[in-house]
């Protein structure tokens, strides 16, 4: 296995005394495209926040690019799950994306270069024409694309997207996943998502998270994984994905 860019070892996390994540181990090699799947409340978002250093584990260690998460958070492009916060805020789409270019150590807060990079990020998500709109005037799906553009604006080495497609229609989804596949040539990508069927034709690995974590470095999503991840049988329907053969994984996972 290549040297992992994300290295999580024996991490425990609990909130108000109830365990959210137990004994999580996760080694993601560079340029992997990982999907985090699992039921709501299973700890996916918590793990994302641990990877970003927004939360600290109770036990265990997390290394991103061989450093503690808080030291390298600015090299991770992050799009959060909840876009509805602060909806009425007077801010333009371009200004939201420019947040992604902020850094701790520069006196000039926004240069021409920053604006160009932000516009390029918006363009890659087909959102450039909306750059002067107030964020409040956009639909949920458009807002989500703006937040992905913000994550891309600083050209990060790792992309962490927490349910990026929750409000996006199926055309938008396909477009987004194709874009991510393209970006995957140079970046490591982690996507939290429920659309397992769409995902399975793009991702290179799957992590099932439901308090514990099972990592599958082959991209097929099996019935067993779904059952384990969601604690109830989920019908697997593979639309036109002929290479997807649902095999069971060995015990000891």
């Amino acid at each position, binding site marked *: 296995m290549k040297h992992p860019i994300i290295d999580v070892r024996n991490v425990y996390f609990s909130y108000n005394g109830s365990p959210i994540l137990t004994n999580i181990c996760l080694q993601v090699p560079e340029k992997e495209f990982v999907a985090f799947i699992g039921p709501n409340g299973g700890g996916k978002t918590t793990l994302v926040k641990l990877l970003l*250093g*927004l939360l600290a584990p109770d036990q265990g260690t997390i290394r991103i690019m061989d450093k503690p998460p808080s030291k390298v*958070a*600015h090299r991770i492009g992050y799009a959060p799950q909840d876009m509805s*916060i602060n909806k009425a*805020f007077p801010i333009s789409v371009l200004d939201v994306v420019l947040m992604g270019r902020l850094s701790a150590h520069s006196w000039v807060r926004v240069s021409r270069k920053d604006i160009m990079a932000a516009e390029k990020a918006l363009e890659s998500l087909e959102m450039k024409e909306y750059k002067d709109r107030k964020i409040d005037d956009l639909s949920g799906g458009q807002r989500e694309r703006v937040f992905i553009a913000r994550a891309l604006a600083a050209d990060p080495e790792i992309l962490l997207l927490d349910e990026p497609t929750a409000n996006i229609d199926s055309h938008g989804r396909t477009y987004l996943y194709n874009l991510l596949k393209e970006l995957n040539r140079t970046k490591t990508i982690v996507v939290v998502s429920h659309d397992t069927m769409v995902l399975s034709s793009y991702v290179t690995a799957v992590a099932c998270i439901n308090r514990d974590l099972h990592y599958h470095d082959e991209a097929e999503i099996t019935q067993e994984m779904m059952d384990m991840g969601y604690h109830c049988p989920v019908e697997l329907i593979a639309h036109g994905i002929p290479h997807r053969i649902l095999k069971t994984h060995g015990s000891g996972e």
Partner: protein
Amino acid sequence: MIEALEFEFMRNALMAGLFASLICGMIGSFVVVNRLVFLAGGIAHSAFGGIGIAFFFGIPYLVGTLGVALAAAIIMTGVVLTRKSRADTFIGILWAVGMAIGIILMDLSPGYNVNLMSYLFGSILAVPKSDIYWMAGLSAVIVLSTYFFYRDILAISYDDEFARLRGVPVNLIYFLFIALVAVGIVLIIRVVGLILIIALLTIPPYIAEKYCRSLARMMIVATLLSMAFNLSGLWIAYCYDLTSGATIILVAAGAFFISMVADMVLKKLKKQGKEPPVSVNPT
């Protein structure tokens, strides 16, 4: 109005009103977009404790109120940053305790009885020159810090979690701006009073927020609105011999009401315009 300007107190009142508008327009926008109105109210009320301390211990008024307001601001910000869900309770406690301390200490101070009404509504017609200089200085500090930290304020106010990830010193800037809010409140209370400061911090930014696409524009529009309210309020108060602070509040509240009604009417018109024409089925 013109002949009124022959009086120095009237000129001072006008200047004080304009600087108060600038300070309130800027920090008010910060307060409103960050949902910190309750915290601002808490600072303003607990600062009353500072007056009591100043009189009781015989220290200068400004030292007492600034000290207490800043201390309250630091404690409240600390609570907001660490225990957001309980912040309003702590602010409520400080709010009440500050006022109570102020009143008890004044009871105990021999021979002096400060007029609570003047704390509530201020005395814009009796503003000394020195207060105007203080306000001018603070206005400069607020404008410069906002210009310098604009992107950071924007990021922190909009999405503080993301700002933290980008390496923005969130806590530091948060403390800095709430300290500016506290200093602004203390200076302006003397001029326009406790009630008006809450009105000026909230009404103009709230109206401006609806029509502006950026925080910077919101700050400018809020300042201009606030100036308009102050000038017209003062003028009406002068003409009809009314309490100036209360008159300014009612002018601002009137504008707030008009903007709300106008919004509702506009929305309705827009909806009607958008509705597809009712097609009459020929059959």
